[in-house]
């Protein structure tokens, strides 16, 4: 607080030499941190800290919010992008196959989230309904059966995203997902699912390794 008529104490550059000024600030910084941590002096480690404890602490600092199970940190999470291979298609439907590596799907991989992304070209100022059918292998034979359907309203050209449900996630886990895109209505022919290199449809799956495997072991 300034007294009336007094001058501001810190409005001039310090008159002391730079090194003294620097040392002064260093001492202030050290004292400030120790005071705020309620420490009289820097602690000395009484016993070695395990690397695992340190790793966990760092993961908590940078990773998911505190409170998440420690085991979750040990699980690896990554994303698989699978580009479509076009199956049987005609003007009324487009069939897309997505394959996921058997190495990744063999034991212990858990699909947490999957999205289907596709590029659509529409005539200007038009909308188009589209039915997206999810096929999965029947549990009793090798035939593909419809596991679920999603009706989409596409109102503009560009990339569109559909979040896939548990049936599609299960198919991804098994290594093969088949989607069938069926335009609805009279103007079906105006809808074009782009499939060239730059616009190839794909499925992005968020995968966690270890979950199922560890559960089985227990």
């Amino acid at each position, binding site marked *: 607080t*300034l007294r*009336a*008529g*007094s*001058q*501001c*104490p*810190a*409005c*001039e*550059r*310090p*008159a*002391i030499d730079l090194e*003294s*000024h620097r040392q*002064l*600030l*260093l001492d*202030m*910084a*050290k004292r*400030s*941190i120790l005071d*705020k*941590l309620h*420490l009289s002096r*820097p*602690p*000395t*480690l*009484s*016993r*070695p*800290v395990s690397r695992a*404890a*340190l790793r966990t*602490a*760092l993961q*908590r*600092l940078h990773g998911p919010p505190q409170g998440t199970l420690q085991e979750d940190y040990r699980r690896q999470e990554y994303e698989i992008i699978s580009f479509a291979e076009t199956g049987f298609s005609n003007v009324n439907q487009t069939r897309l196959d997505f394959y996921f590596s058997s190495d990744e799907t063999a034991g212990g991989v858990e699909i947490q989230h999957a999205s289907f992304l596709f590029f659509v070209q529409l005539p200007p100022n038009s909308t188009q309904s589209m039915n997206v059918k999810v096929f999965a292998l029947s549990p009793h034979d090798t035939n593909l059966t419809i596991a679920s359907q999603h009706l989409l309203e596409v109102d503009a050209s560009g990339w569109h995203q559909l979040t896939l449900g548990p049936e599609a996630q299960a198919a991804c886990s098994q290594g093969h997902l088949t989607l069938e895109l069926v335009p609805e209505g009279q103007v079906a022919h105006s809808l074009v699912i782009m499939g060239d290199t730059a616009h190839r449809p794909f499925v992005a799956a968020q995968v966690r390794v270890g979950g199922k495997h560890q559960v089985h072991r227990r």
Partner: protein
Amino acid sequence: GIDCQGVSRMCCRQEFFVDFREIGWQDWIIQPEGYAMNFCTGQCPLHVAGMPGIAASFHTAVLNLLKANTAGGTAGGGSCCVPTVQRPLSLLYYDRDSNIVKTDIPDMVVEACGCS
């Protein structure tokens, strides 16, 4: 706020980084590697004054210490160059019992300066 550059004597933020390795604290502070303390310096003429209510903090103590080491400067009528934006310092460190502790110390890093 403005950062101190060149020979301007107006109120500005001077960057100041405390490297924990340099002061020998790397053995107990795990992260970060240093403390971007920063401080405010420079003149506050009357026409730039007018930001009252700046909370007192550790940096006020810095100002007071600087006061003792400053040749009688001109204040221009009772306005001081003080921190106007501050943020916490997050620390991950070992305490006395070798526990790993994470804490946020508020108002430790000066982000911007202005005239009170």
